[in-house]
């Protein structure tokens, strides 16, 4: 039908759908449901809009308003019938597929990651704050937080009790003695004329103000609070100067200049301050992927094994699943068929995580069940061929029940008469299966097989929880012989705890391209399989 309506004559206004007259006119219940659903969409929009507005994210807010307006426009109008069906899917597609892909591409051209997360201003503030140090022999005080006037709004004052019992009042202008203060046993001021003492909760409410306050004492030092009851005289040893866009370390005289291309402060020797910021790095991450000698040498071998793993798993689960399904597909119901089916589906019903870890332990060279049962001494996970065999075995074991279920269903949908007719015409059992059952089966199974292939191509858990990509030849600690592209790149991007999101995003874009290509090729192949049906 789609073919017929293609070609010329498209620009005309769409004819009403054939069944339009049969569509029930909106009853009161329908309108009510519609109203509730639209109300929910407004509710969601408001729920999303308030934090966005609070954070000043106007682009996000505009997007929310636009989407909500679109929803109302489409569903309150009598027209746009196809759009009414398409809109939810399209919105979800944009939200969960298109936006993440664009975001990943956007991230891949930055140095975003540990040490480069925030803005330059945040980095400078952190560097200065972290550099505040108490000088040698500088004074400690017992602190009482107070305010001139109301506890919540009055000017903040540090009442400082020195070692000799004197009490000083410090504010942004400096120190002055307080004569009539009385102090408790710990040195804390209990009462002082003209000052309102702050309770802990009141101080908590003005936390930011208190953390930022530094009472000027001697040249370049400030008295800062450390908690609610201690204060110390300290000096920021690293100071930012906007004129030279640099940070000077006053204790060593070292000057660190901002490098806006790398997103950190560097000194002449090339040493950096650890707090950096996020900057755009153009195609650097992509260049790093391409230029990495490890990637260049191991990419194709990993890709090769990756294809073998995905294809081998798909083939294995298909053959095993189908064989079992055929064995159970007897003319008269097998005695105890339900029990067999239950047992066969069991691996599928178990949590895959636990099963993979269990299998890994069974393949252990010294303590594993497999070596003990077979009486062998094979270092399964320590050798390339055996580790690959182990990974495939585990994955096929986990995957075949699903294929068994699909094949059972598909077999039952094929009329037995067809096979019987073929047998009467003189075909052998194999011939009948090969030329009658299998082609009909493939119509139902081909899309599942393609999905299985695509899933296993990126089956991170199947490798990470079993071999972890190992064994690793001694000359390549980053690329193991059972690594898939996804596990390999995960290790590259997140080796250990350190996160390099920009680099990881660049690698993800490469994987995205590879998977896109493979999906495209498989879909064309599946289109070819459908020809069988015509």
């Amino acid at each position, binding site marked *: 039908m789609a073919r017929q309506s293609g070609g010329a004559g498209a620009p005309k206004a769409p004819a009403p759908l054939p069944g339009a007259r049969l569509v029930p006119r909106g009853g009161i219940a329908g309108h009510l449901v519609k109203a509730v659903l639209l109300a929910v969409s407004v509710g969601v929009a408001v729920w999303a809009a308030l934090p966005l507005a609070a954070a000043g994210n106007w682009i996000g807010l505009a997007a929310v308003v636009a989407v909500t307006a679109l929803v109302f426009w489409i569903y309150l109008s009598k027209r746009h019938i196809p759009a009414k069906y398409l809109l939810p899917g399209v919105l979800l597609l944009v939200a969960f597929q298109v936006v993440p892909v664009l975001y990943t591409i956007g991230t891949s051209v930055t140095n975003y990651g540990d040490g480069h997360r925030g803005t330059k201003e945040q980095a400078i503030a952190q560097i200065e704050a972290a550099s505040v140090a108490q000088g040698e022999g500088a004074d400690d005080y017992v602190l009482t937080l107070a305010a001139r006037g109301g506890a919540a709004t009055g000017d903040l004052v540090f009442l400082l009790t020195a070692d000799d019992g004197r009490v000083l009042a410090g504010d942004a202008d400096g120190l002055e003695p307080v004569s009539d203060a009385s102090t408790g046993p710990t040195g804390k001021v209990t009462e002082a004329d003209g000052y309102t003492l702050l309770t802990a909760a009141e101080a908590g409410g003005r936390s930011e103000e208190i953390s930022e306050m530094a009472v000027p004492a001697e040249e370049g030092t400030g008295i800062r609070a450390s908690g609610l009851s201690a204060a110390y005289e300290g000096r920021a040893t690293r100071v930012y100067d906007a004129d030279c866009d640099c940070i000077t370390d006053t204790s060593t005289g070292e000057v660190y200049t901002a490098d806006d291309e790398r997103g950190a402060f560097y000194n002449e020797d090339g040493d950096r301050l650890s707090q950096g910021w996020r900057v755009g790095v153009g195609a650097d991450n992509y260049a790093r992927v391409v230029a990495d000698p490890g990637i260049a040498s191991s990419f194709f071998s990993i890709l090769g094994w990756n294809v073998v793993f995905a294809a081998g798993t798909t083939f294995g689960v298909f053959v095993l699943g189908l064989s079992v399904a055929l064995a159970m597909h007897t003319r008269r119901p097998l005695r105890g068929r339900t029990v067999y089916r239950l047992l066969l589906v069991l691996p599928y019903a178990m949590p895959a995580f636990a099963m993979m870890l269990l299998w890994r332990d069974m393949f252990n060279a010294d303590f594993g069940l497999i070596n003990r049962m077979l009486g062998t001494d094979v270092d399964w996970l320590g050798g390339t061929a055996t580790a690959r065999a182990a990974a495939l075995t585990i994955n096929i074991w986990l995957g075949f029940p699903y294929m068994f279920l699909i094949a059972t269903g598909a077999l039952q949908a094929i009329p037995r008469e067809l096979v019987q007719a073929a047998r009467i015409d003189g075909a052998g059992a194999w011939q009948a299966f090969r030329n009658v059952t299998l082609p009909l089966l493939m119509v139902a199974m081909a899309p599942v097989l393609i999905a299985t292939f695509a899933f296993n191509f990126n089956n991170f858990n199947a490798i990470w929880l079993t071999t972890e990509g190992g064994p690793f030849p*001694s000359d390549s600690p980053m690329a193991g012989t059972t690594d898939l592209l996804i596990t390999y790149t995960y290790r590259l991007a997140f080796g250990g705890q350190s996160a390099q999101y920009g680099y990881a995003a660049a690698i993800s874009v490469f994987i995205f391209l590879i998977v896109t290509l493979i999906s495209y090729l498989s879909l064309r192949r599946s289109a070819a399989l459908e020809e069988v049906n015509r």
Partner: protein
Amino acid sequence: MRPRTATPRALAGAAALALAATACGSGEPAEDAAGSLVIWADPERTDVLQPFAEEFGEANGVRVEVQSLPVDDIQGDFVTAHEAGSGPDILVGAHDWIGNLVQNGAIDPVQLPGDAAERFDEGAVEAVTYQGRLYGVPYAMESLMLVRNTELAPEAPATVEEMVETGTALKEDGEVEEALGLQVSQTGDPFHLQPFYTSAGGSLFGTDDEGDPDPSDLGVGTDASVEAMEKVAELGEEGEGVLKRSIDGDNVNGLFERGETPYFVTGPWSLAGIKDAGVDYAISPVPGFEGMDEARPFLGVQSFFVASGGENKVLAEEFIVNNVAQPELATALYEADPRPPALREVFEAAEADDPDLAAMMEAAGNAEPMPAIPEMSAVWDPFGKAQAAVIGGEDPAGAVDSAEQAISEQIG
């Protein structure tokens, strides 16, 4: 026909807006941000901290909330939450996170009043000091030690050789399955191999002016590291066969608890299981190779950090300075999870009742703080794999060189 349906449609739209408006009208009142303190800790500490947090909250008229996060995710979640501006005020964690937390601007230095720092174990204070600043208040220490089954091996071995000899003899007699329980796994475990690696002369980093490990002076790949790994290889699968890749974190506890190995290189975290299993055990420092350096395992220090993005930094500082640095909380934390406490007086008080504690402290005596620099995260994985390869019988020089290349590539 059209006008007739227009009304219900307009009505539907209006009703939708009205419904939405009523739904929003009942929104919760703005939360009183002032006076509430949020602490993030792993599940094991959460219960211990809860009463102290409540007490602190009542004494100061603030609401304190202790939130439990899985131990493997807590550091990453903390950095992400900090970035989003929704992090806690206090983080409880390991000192080796400091480098990463500082480079992300997620924690602030702590100022202990007067001589308070002197009341802590020196090693613990050294561990939480980074770039010359104190970044956390420590409360417990942990390091690898040698736990032995006293029925099988009554005497603490003085050297690796002695330990291997005893263990191998027991194995040959069929009394045990493995001579030594030290987790290696297929991907290696530099943390657990560190005592042997350092005893044989290996190091991970040099030291910079501020006393921190120096990432530009990598110890992996030096001649000393290759020689150290050659020494380790002698214990490996092609040598004595006491270090094996088949022994990993999942089966090593069971080996010792079932009496299938006389020696177990582990930390305080395994003691609870060993006690439950009823094994007669004793603790001693991990021995070094004969005639070589002392074994220097990693020292890990659990501490409290002040989040730089917290809404209640003042209260957080108050809690840490005036509670964590006090014996009551440190004692409670020790009782919940017996690891050597960082406060000296707590250690001294507990030492008499707990013979394990003195032994653990002795084992920690030679320990060096685990590097807190962010570059350390680039070392674990490649160096572990090199160690696994060497233990599996491959050439140490090649394996160490490849690890060095991979690490340098990551550090940049």
